[in-house]
């Protein structure tokens, strides 16, 4: 059979109009620009970023400007009310409360961020392996996840905390240990749903190996939800650390963190020493709210990227 091949004839149709027959793409900004755009439109998210930036400066730059000693106790200065000397008063050990908020915030933020990152990375790895290997391995791995998930986090934390001598790195490990299961479930679900998408089938149909599918297509598409999760995880981790401190299983003094300060201050609620009760609590609430705002807006923004249909 002789196929008529006349490229000019087919071209003629194309070139009847100056523009290509299919028309041009409508340039929208890049995906990250779109995400950023939607994100910035969410005023709460902008507020959240503002709060986080403020606290980062407050905790890490603040001590350089507002110099206080947070190592040596000074028993002549205990329980002073706020004054020009001590803007937020002093606590039971004579530490300057404002200065302690700054130093304590360092620990809270560090532990929160690190635990969230460790939990998200480990969970992502776990979920991805379960999702791709499938079969019995998947079943066993996911039953482990289900089991850890069934243990109420505070109970598990207490259990672990009794066994380990508290330190910053231990705290990160312990908090990460109770939080990695949620991202593991998310990633597995995400990869299962991505696996059946047409574009994955298309790449498979070109002869791609699984490794390429995972690295080039599935993981990049799962990154968005993971970033969103990690943001929420920071908030949860800060709360968990605070709770652990309240339960008396935090890092021992003189190291400080907001949870510790708060739970110490709570002993004095009956004495009307408000500066020991509210500032630390407010710091925790503000930072946690901020991360939740950011997470919420990120989730909307990540979903929006495919909206134009």
């Amino acid at each position, binding site marked *: *059979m002789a196929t008529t*091949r006349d490229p000019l004839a087919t071209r003629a149709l194309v070139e009847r109009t100056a523009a290509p027959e*299919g028309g041009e*793409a409508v340039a*929208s900004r890049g995906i990250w620009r779109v995400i950023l755009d939607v994100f910035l439109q969410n005023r709460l998210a902008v507020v959240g970023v503002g709060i986080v930036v403020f606290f980062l400066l407050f905790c890490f730059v603040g001590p350089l400007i507002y110099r206080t000693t947070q190592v040596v106790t000074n028993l002549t200065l205990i329980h002073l009310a706020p004054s020009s000397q001590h803007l937020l008063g002093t606590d039971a050990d004579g530490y300057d409360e404002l200065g302690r908020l700054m130093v304590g915030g360092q620990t809270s933020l560090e532990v929160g961020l690190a635990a969230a990152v460790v939990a998200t990375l480990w969970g992502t790895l776990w979920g991805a392996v379960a999702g791709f290997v499938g079969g019995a391995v998947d079943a066993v791995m996911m039953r482990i996840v289900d089991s850890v998930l069934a243990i109420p986090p505070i109970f598990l934390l207490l259990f672990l905390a009794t066994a380990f001598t508290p330190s910053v790195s231990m705290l990160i490990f312990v908090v990460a240990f109770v939080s990695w299961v949620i991202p593991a479930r998310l990633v597995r679900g995400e990869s299962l749903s991505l696996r059946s998408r047409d*574009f994955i089938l298309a790449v498979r149909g070109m002869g791609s190996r699984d490794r390429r599918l995972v690295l080039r297509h599935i993981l990049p598409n799962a990154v968005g939800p993971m970033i969103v999760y990690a943001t929420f995880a920071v908030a949860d981790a800060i709360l968990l650390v605070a709770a652990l401190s309240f339960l008396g299983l935090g890092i021992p003094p003189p190291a400080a963190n907001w949870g510790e300060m708060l739970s110490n201050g709570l002993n004095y609620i009956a004495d009307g020493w408000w500066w020991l009760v509210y500032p630390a609590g407010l710091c925790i609430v503000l930072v946690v709210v901020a991360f939740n705002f950011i997470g919420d807006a990120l989730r909307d923004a990540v979903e929006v*990227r495919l909206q134009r249909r």
Partner: protein
Amino acid sequence: MTEAQRVECTSLLRVDGLKTEIRQRHATIRAIDGVSFSVAQGETVGLVGESGSGKTMTGLSIIGLLPPGGRVVGGRILFLGQDLARLPARAMRAVRGSGIGVVFQDPMTSLNPCMTIGDQIVEPIRAHRESDRKAARRRALELLDLVGVPQAKERLKDYPHQLSGGLRQRVMIAIALSCDPKLLIADEPTTALDVTIQSEILELLGRLKAALSMSMLLITHDLGVIAGHADRVIVMYAGRIVEEANASELFAQTRHPYTGALLASIPEVDEGTDRVLYSIPGVPPDLSQDRQGCAFAPRCDRATGRCEVDDPQLEGCADHSAACFNPLTTEEGSGRSPMHAVAVEPRRPPPSSADKRAPLLVVDHVVKTYPVTTGVLRRRIGAVNAVSDVSFTMTQGETLGLVGESGCGKTTLGKMIVALERPDAGSIVFDGIDLTKQSNRATRTMRRNFQLIFQDPYSSLDPRMRVGPALREPMVINAIGNGVSRDRRITELLGDVGLSKEAVRYYPHEFSGGQRQRIGFARALTLSPRLIVADEPVSALDVSIRSQLLNLIKRLQEAHELTYLVISHDLSVVRYLADRIGVMYLGKLVEIGTCEQVYGRPAHPYTAGLLAAVPIPDPARERAKRRIPVNGELPSARNPPSGCRFRTRCPRAQERCTVEEPVLQAVSGTDHQAACHFPLVATDVGKSAQRDGSRAFGSDGA
């Protein structure tokens, strides 16, 4: 309905200068921009247009159910003397469901999944009519009978998920009719349904409309549906009415170039493959931008300077008006496809199947079943027979069309042919190599020879990958060429599919559906495959974009010496593209032959019924068409009927069909085979189809 008659009836609904806006995140869409029309008592008005034309928004504006952000910003909607646009919420509720009933597009999502059918029908009755529970229940039963739901009494206690799509749409109709509305708004009532079910539902709507002396506003994108069921037709484009006329007048004497172009872009089920389909260049306008002049001007080949500046108004008599400065002349506008003259081009002769070359693809007794499991141990309780003993062959360079309704196994078959699924039994031999016997590694290296094109252009491209890398990827995977030669190839292929080479810099979401489908073709072609399996390649696209793609598909075949397997539920699309056609029903291939044979002299009753069910965009032929019923609903693929699987819906079924499974056998000539004990012969039904067909070819010469 004649002009005199229409004046006699008072108009039931008058829409006057309606303007509706939808506020979105970044922009305000002027969805409807000054639309006026009326619907007379007892009249069916068809509202037709592509997506974004404002047809659906018009319907939703009338009943006041616009989506979030939507708002009527101007004009009046007069219904029985009330202006619905300004009615307080409470009074509007009294109109909804009582004065105006609505049937929405998707029966799968339009019913509450947590409520029984009975409760859902009773609800409006009790809100507007009967306060007595028992009486309302009786009325619901009556309604279910009326809309043809079998065993209505038992169905009342069923939940929506227990019913098929067709039955659910009947329930929707029962709800809409529950309080004897004066006006029924049917918004794409059959778009989500199979073609045989579609024709039943449309017929039902027509019958009920007459019996209950209602008026109907039939909103659809399908000119064939309009041709068969509307008295008067309103064509919308970009939020405005571009043409309005009596149905017969519109199709016989088209005035607006857009209507003409639309009619010319539809491939017809009774029309051969020997012409290039007319296609409207470009894409519809962005409705959030200010408009100047005629919205269609940028895509119109009759546009003059004036069209870009001035706004054309609807002009003409009450029977027929169009908004165009350069309407089609009587000469141009008559004839079935007014724009034929523009683009008729000789087509390549289809490869003759008598061509004695070794077949490229041999599908031999292929079976695929999916297990249905239950219980703790996932015990197998049954199996869905997705594909059941299908055999056919394809030669190099031909196009085989595979048609069938949902659940017939055509998609599964397509996936097996490109080795994305493995058959349970049988063999698929591609160019002498049995794919079912290859190792995974060998299959991977074979893959470049056959590629799949997907239905949904939105999900077939990785949203995170720019078009450039996406097109380069297949060559990288298969280690073809180097950087320079790959880029050259990409530029070349983008040109072939009608995109500029700039496309490589963009992400998929920056392209329209039609453009993405072009990219899909370019990606498939990077590997120079020999066979392309296209699964519903154009069904997600609008009519005007669809014809562009159909022509592209044909053009690519010539340029790249491709063999196509085109899978579609749309018989006219397949007819336009294919040389040979296979018809599938419930996992079985029931008929196969050349286009002329299958469409001209269908031998299997199912094929005949399917063909008869396809609406033709020509009122005269559509209404004269003989109905060949395909009764009832599709049986479950888990328990297919014994013997012939079609027998439960077949008008010719006899005792023998129950016990003996028919096999494919030659009916007329060796190429034309059907699996039926009592195949139709030319004298039965072929005659009427043939008559239509010959007329079609006759008028083609115009």
